[in-house]
């Protein structure tokens, strides 16, 4: 294949290469006849494979629970009523439900707990594996500085966001902080999302939660995410609510603090 005038490949005009400065979109690809050049075609299939692997990968629950316990947290593992990945993607309702006996088991082993951390695979176990512990390490000292502790942690397999509600209810929680793998795109397969829910009960509307999304080093880095989440947690407990009536305003506080304090997690 040649880049020359008589070659099969029609490269994008040189002036168009500048377009790439402005967007992560797949612009200025050139063409092979009326199709994609080979390199662009294969790069797309590689990115799709990564995203697919992220969806169908599983979290190592045992390792994650051990890592949480090593940090001094009371932790346990569980699964939603969606038995496997194929059921999970078809049946979002089952991914939101906790078997009744599991709720009782969690209550016995962990409860009661005021602040509950839930970590679920969601649509990207890769996001959990890559970013969850880094976020916990940044978040725990920030919560502690506000006088709050994580009283229990639950690792959930085949979990949707709303499964935090029956878990929180079983443990009598004032606040559930849920970390969950987001739906992967081709440009990011490992984004973690965080949802905060005050005094959750099963059947809560999503408008009753706050969300911090795109948590990953190239998106919202865990240290910065922890700052926002701690701010939301503090205000949720102080105002006794989450959701559309709690607008995140941590940026104003952030601007008033030296950058070093943020980076060091002080």
């Amino acid at each position: 294949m040649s880049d020359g005038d008589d070659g099969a490949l029609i490269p994008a005009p040189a002036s168009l290469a500048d377009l790439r400065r402005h967007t992560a979109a797949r612009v200025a690809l050139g063409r092979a006849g009326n199709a994609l050049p080979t390199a662009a075609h294969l790069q797309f299939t590689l990115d799709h494979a990564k995203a697919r692997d992220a969806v169908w990968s599983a979290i190592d629950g045992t390792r994650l629970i051990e890592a949480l316990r090593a940090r001094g947290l009371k932790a346990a593992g569980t699964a939603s009523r969606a038995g496997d990945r194929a059921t999970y993607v078809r049946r979002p309702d089952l991914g939101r439900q906790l078997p009744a006996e599991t709720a009782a088991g969690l209550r016995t082993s962990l409860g009661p707990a005021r602040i509950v951390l839930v970590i679920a695979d969601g649509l990207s176990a890769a996001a959990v594996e890559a970013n969850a512990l880094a976020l916990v390490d940044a978040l725990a000292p920030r919560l502690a500085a506000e006088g709050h502790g994580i009283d229990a942690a639950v690792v959930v397999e085949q979990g949707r966001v709303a499964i935090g509600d029956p878990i929180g209810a079983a443990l009598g929680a004032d606040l559930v902080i849920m970390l969950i793998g987001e739906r992967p795109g081709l440009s990011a397969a490992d984004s973690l999302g965080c949802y905060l829910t005050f005094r959750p009960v099963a059947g809560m509307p999503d408008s009753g939660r706050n969300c911090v999304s795109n948590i990953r080093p190239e998106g919202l880095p865990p240290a910065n995410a922890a700052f926002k989440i701690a701010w939301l947690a503090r205000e949720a407990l102080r105002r006794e609510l989450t959701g559309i009536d709690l607008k995140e305003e941590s940026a104003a506080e952030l601007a008033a603090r030296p950058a070093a304090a943020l980076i060091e997690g002080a």
Partner: protein
Amino acid sequence: MAYSIALDGTTWRFPDLRDLMAKATPRRSGDELAGIAAESAVHRIAAQMALADAPLADFLSATFVPYETDDVTRLIVDGHDPAAFRPVAAMTVGEFREWLLSPLATAEALAALRPGLTPEMVAAVSKLMRVQDLVLVAAKVRVVTAFRNTIGLPGRLATRLQPNHPTDDSRGIAASLIDGLLLGAGDAVLGVNPATDGVQDYIRVVTLLDDIRTRLKVPTQTCCLGHVTTAIKAIEQGAPVDLVFQSIAGSEGANAGFGVSLALLAEARDAALSLGRGTAGRNVMYFETGQGAALSANAHHDVDQQTMEARAYAVARRFEPLLVNTVVGFIGPEYLYNGKEITRAGLEDHFCGKLLGLPMGVDVCYTNHCDADQDDMDALFLLLANAGVNFVITVPGADDVMLNYQSLSYHDALGAREITGRRRAPEFEAWLAEVGLGDGAGRLYPGAEPLAMRPALAALAHRLDAAE
């Protein structure tokens, strides 16, 4: 009215048309999620056989969603034209299928029939059709609309150029837009799905799109796909709004979930018409639909998701849109599980929309938690191109970096044109030739950007750099 059929000594019973339709619909994860699907493959075929024997006229008295509590039902029932219905009034659903496939169903006959058809009738007959049937019948139907160019003429296929950006950055949007125009995309609309939801951001996006369109003299229309209420506010503030966009669904409750009503849509259309921006025509609305929307809003009334989708088309046709597209694989595998279900649904949606008289487009697409890939998109796109789809969505390299899903690329449209001979909207095709991008028959020249575009592109690049 109850329906039943005996097969191999077993009698299968269906209490009403709504249940019969749900059991007869091809396998779909959303209907299983809703708990209304057939319990076995034989159960499904028994339902299809019973449906084939059901008189088409039964649909005029059947209840799918109650008339008293649903304005979409009232729109369907009150708007039915018995005179237009007369040619098919005595047929069963099965006989209607055969009539549609026959030479009797010409483009003219199908156009005359439109006001006599209800969404439930077209959904029913589509359930008895194979993929080739859906393509064959839809290919006979023509729906032509116009704003600044003309969409839907025979032998034509338009594309929406979708230059989305994760933060609606003006330079990022412009970069994707220029890239798409140079690849010959955008005759259906230059349309951005905004990541931000404020009126000021909406105005900034439509102004940017309008600037680029006028600077390059592109005979097409632009759209920011924000909420209809945002569009109305932007129009009040004097923003250059060509098309007003809204997602719609097939019941009053599901539309309420989108924050819209029939009255609000009428208000938005009046606002857009008041600007008088169209030069070739007065179709000012752009609607998006998709199977599963009513179920996810918990407003599906135990009606199968494909029939609910067809009911959304009754809403759309009331407002004479320029464009309607089903975002077929966007919502996820809980509604359409894999490439096979997406392909079937895309062709059903296109068929039903066209029979009801809509300028149907399709976002040929999927998410990464769905069992589908670009091969499935190629297959569906080539089927749709042959079925005469009015337009498809195209994004840079088929990867949307804002919505995190995959659609078709600008290249895919070029390839399908080469394969099928489909051409762009005539006004847009003439523009491509004028600026030296194409040869007048729709083929793009190889090589660099054309001489005629250079000064305009240079000015644009300068302006974007200055904005940094």
